[in-house]
């Protein structure tokens, strides 16, 4: 239990997925114009990463690194990149269809962002990190959920700041993306402060 909590805090706050590992930068910068959309995007990411890290961990344990095959000298783990990206792409499509049919209210709020997530590098990044760190299934799910929560926290904070500075008088070359990147730089410095926690 204590170990799971440590994993969660470490990946949500200390090694924040966006601000210290630079995964999912595109959507972090692109979809953070308004707090509402940032929350929608963040929620969709939490949803997808949690499910995908579970599915990827199950596939890795029972198919790629299968004990039976391993004992016979057949090591399929080299297929992980291909398998994970395909599983994630298919999974996102499947989740989208499932929500559209069965939970239309959730689809209304998350649907737009789901398609965007297919090739979000954070999703694949988490699946691969789980393998590198040799996490089991439960640990993988916790790590995935916490990483995605870190993304949610970061994108909502950034959107809040962007709403505040939208009408500021900023010198011409600094307008737009440059000021957003400077904001992320300051946020990244703030999050470095957590590194003493663990």
């Amino acid at each position: 239990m204590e170990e799971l909590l440590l994993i969660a805090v470490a990946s949500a706050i200390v090694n924040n997925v966006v601000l210290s590992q630079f995964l999912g930068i595109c959507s972090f910068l692109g979809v953070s114009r308004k707090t509402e959309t940032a929350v929608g995007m963040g929620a969709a990411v939490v949803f997808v990463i949690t499910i995908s890290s579970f599915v990827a961990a199950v596939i890795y344990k029972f198919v790629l690194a299968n004990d039976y095959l391993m004992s016979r000298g057949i090591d399929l783990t080299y297929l992980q990149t291909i398998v994970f990206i395909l599983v994630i792409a298919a999974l996102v499509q499947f989740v989208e269809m499932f929500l559209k049919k069965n939970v239309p209210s959730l689809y209304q709020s998350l649907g737009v962002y789901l398609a965007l997530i297919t090739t979000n590098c954070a999703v694949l990044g988490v699946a691969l990190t789980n393998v590198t760190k040799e996490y089991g299934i439960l640990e993988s799910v916790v790590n995935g959920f916490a990483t995605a929560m870190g993304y949610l926290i970061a994108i909502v904070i950034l959107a809040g700041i962007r709403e505040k500075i939208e009408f500021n008088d900023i010198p011409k070359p600094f307008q737009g993306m440059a000021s957003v990147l400077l904001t992320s730089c300051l946020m990244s410095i703030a999050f470095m402060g957590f590194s003493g926690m663990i």
Partner: protein
Amino acid sequence: MNKNMERLYNGIIKENPVLILMLGMCPTLAVTSSAMNGLGMGLSTTAVLVFSNLIISAFRKIIPDGVRMPAYIVIVASLVTVVQFLMNAYTPSLTDSLGVYIPLIVVNCIILGRAESYASKNPVIPSIFDGIGMGLGFTVGLILIGMVRELLGAGQIFGFQVFSLDWFTPITIFVMAPGAFLVLAFLVVGMNFVRAKMEAKGKPLAKPAGCLTGDCTGCGHAASCSGKAVSKTAEQTEKKME
């Protein structure tokens, strides 16, 4: 200038993916803590890009339009796996410092973007040169950013001590995460400045593409998201303004 040379020039200078188009921001920020890492990442991406352009262009008439994205992803993922194992075997220290970012070449927007916008419509030879040009342009961008960060953060370039530590105190933050954002921010500022200058001269630069600007034309993921998220955000902003 023949067509192949034009592709090289286009990739390295005119539509440089890092400096002008602002694509592939994840690796740009993540691996530029030193010039050497930038070089390694740039060259491995180039290798994947050249071969993916070659294969996709060769099979462009066979791959059905409806499943082209999954087909591209499988091709790119196979190539990335090959590159990953070659680097594991021959450059183990680079593999350690690049870590998870090597397999993540799969989701680099530049590769899918070139497949979608160039290789799937053009013959093999120009596609190969397009891959070389774009890949080298990416490498040059990464090395430049890496050199700035390494110089300010450690006083070194490619591991050689340029600024003597007798008088230079390394600004360590530049080789850490915030430094990446800071250097990229000032790069964007510089490019905005140059862009305005060139426009005044009547020689406008190519427009930045990708999520950074909300313009989806250069992004390989546009097929799966078709700009939905970005345009929805823009619409909402407009509504609120009214």
